[in-house]
């Protein structure tokens, strides 16, 4: 499995062959607060890089979830829809959002590595 990459919209993405697993970062969950609702893309649908691919809501507000790369949705994590608090508990592992069969592997190159993302997150939240 490849290195984890990060988007400016606070998603993480992990590539396994041509399938990417995508979720939101711990930093994102800390900014959102308690997540109480999650909506995921439909299985079989196509999503475009930087397009909306879901919604999370905290007690305070709704936020869109974007996809960092384009592809076809091959799986979604029903467990986080049934119990959205799982996203706060384990955002960067078991509380993944959806899996994509990716269209263009070169889109991965536009994303940040962990070190750059951590720096970005720190700067933008200051």
């Amino acid at each position, binding site marked *: 499995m490849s290195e984890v990459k990060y988007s400016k919209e606070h998603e993480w993405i992990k590539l396994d062959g041509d399938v990417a697993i995508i979720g939101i970062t711990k930093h994102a969950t800390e900014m959102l607060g*308690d997540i*109480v*609702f999650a909506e995921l893309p439909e299985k079989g649908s196509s999503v475009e890089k930087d397009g909306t691919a879901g919604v999370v809501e*905290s*007690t*305070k507000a*709704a936020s869109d979830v974007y996809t960092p790369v384009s592809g076809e949705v091959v799986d979604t994590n029903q467990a986080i829809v049934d119990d959205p608090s799982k996203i706060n508990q384990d955002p960067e592992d078991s509380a993944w959002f959806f899996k994509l069969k990716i269209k263009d592997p070169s889109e991965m190159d536009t994303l940040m590595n962990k070190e750059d993302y951590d720096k970005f997150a720190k700067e933008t939240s200051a």
Partner: protein
Amino acid sequence: METKKTSLYQLHQDCNAKFVEFAGYRMPIQYSEGIVEEHKFTRNHSGIFDVSHMGQLFIYGGEDLIKDLEKIFPLDLKNLKLNHSKYSFLMDKDAGIHDDLIITKTNEGFLIILNAACKNNDFKILKEFLEDKYKMVLDENRSLIAIQGPKSSEILNDVINGVKDLNFMSGNWFTFENQKIYITRSGYTGEDGFEISIVNNFVDKLTRELINKGSKLIGLGARDTLRLEAGLCLYGHDLDKDKTPVEANLKWAISKERISKGDFIGSDIIIKQLNDGVSKIRVGIKPEGRIIAREKTKIFNQSDVHIGEITSGTFGPSVNGPVAMGYVENEFSKKNTKVFLEVRGKKHPASICSLPFYKKSYVKGVN
């Protein structure tokens, strides 16, 4: 205008508060545990809310003041007992609501608790109506905290002996560190609790003592989810100048005796609406499933006709699901009426329900 801080600002920082600007004040929206935990802690134990941004208006006077205030508020103030409180509104001549408030009869006149965003305007309106006849003090030297939840009576009584004997919607003067403090048994969470008016210099000490006894600071975020579960209105959202108390389904707060005579600001419209009915009315709305319908969400009937709008909507941690209230055309206001809420372009089923979503446990008392 510079953002104000309350006297508990340092304590909020010590408790890792996240702050937001609210009505010109820097207020804690939540602390480290988060809104859901804070909400549940209040329901199960005891939570302390800094509401010092709210206005504490003392108006000094006797019989004449009672007569003059009755020309403003739809309340039977001459029969209001000493230290008893009533929920009411400051209306305009069309019965639109300038503010909702709690008015308490004190030994020197009245204490009125006003919303932070409205207090300066309320003061101006009231001063004009009362023609400067009475001493009016919008007291900036006093803080206001609320302690709410089932353990609050025991915790507060440990620090200030005697408060547990207060009845719901009544108050009295007590002392803390030789300071006169005014405590009422009231609140905004649907739980038993108290509101404490205390001079700024002593509020930090009192709050820290209450925390030491097991209560915790709770932010404005949980205050909102608690009040919405309790079916209580938030001014500027569920109430405003375009809505009357009858439309807001708050006619219980209007004195029947005063309606029979009229003669308060907005009485013509109130009486007309009570007799003829209203075209829109505030209702509780329960979305099916987990979708959250927030303020300004459009409400549709089963024939896809736009019939109203959500004015408050969030996730209710004690209900463990979404809760909302809003205004709908009167004919669709019956309990269990099926409606649809437009969220992010899709229509989601919901039904009209009675309020509150979470049942109150106020102490009525025996005396």
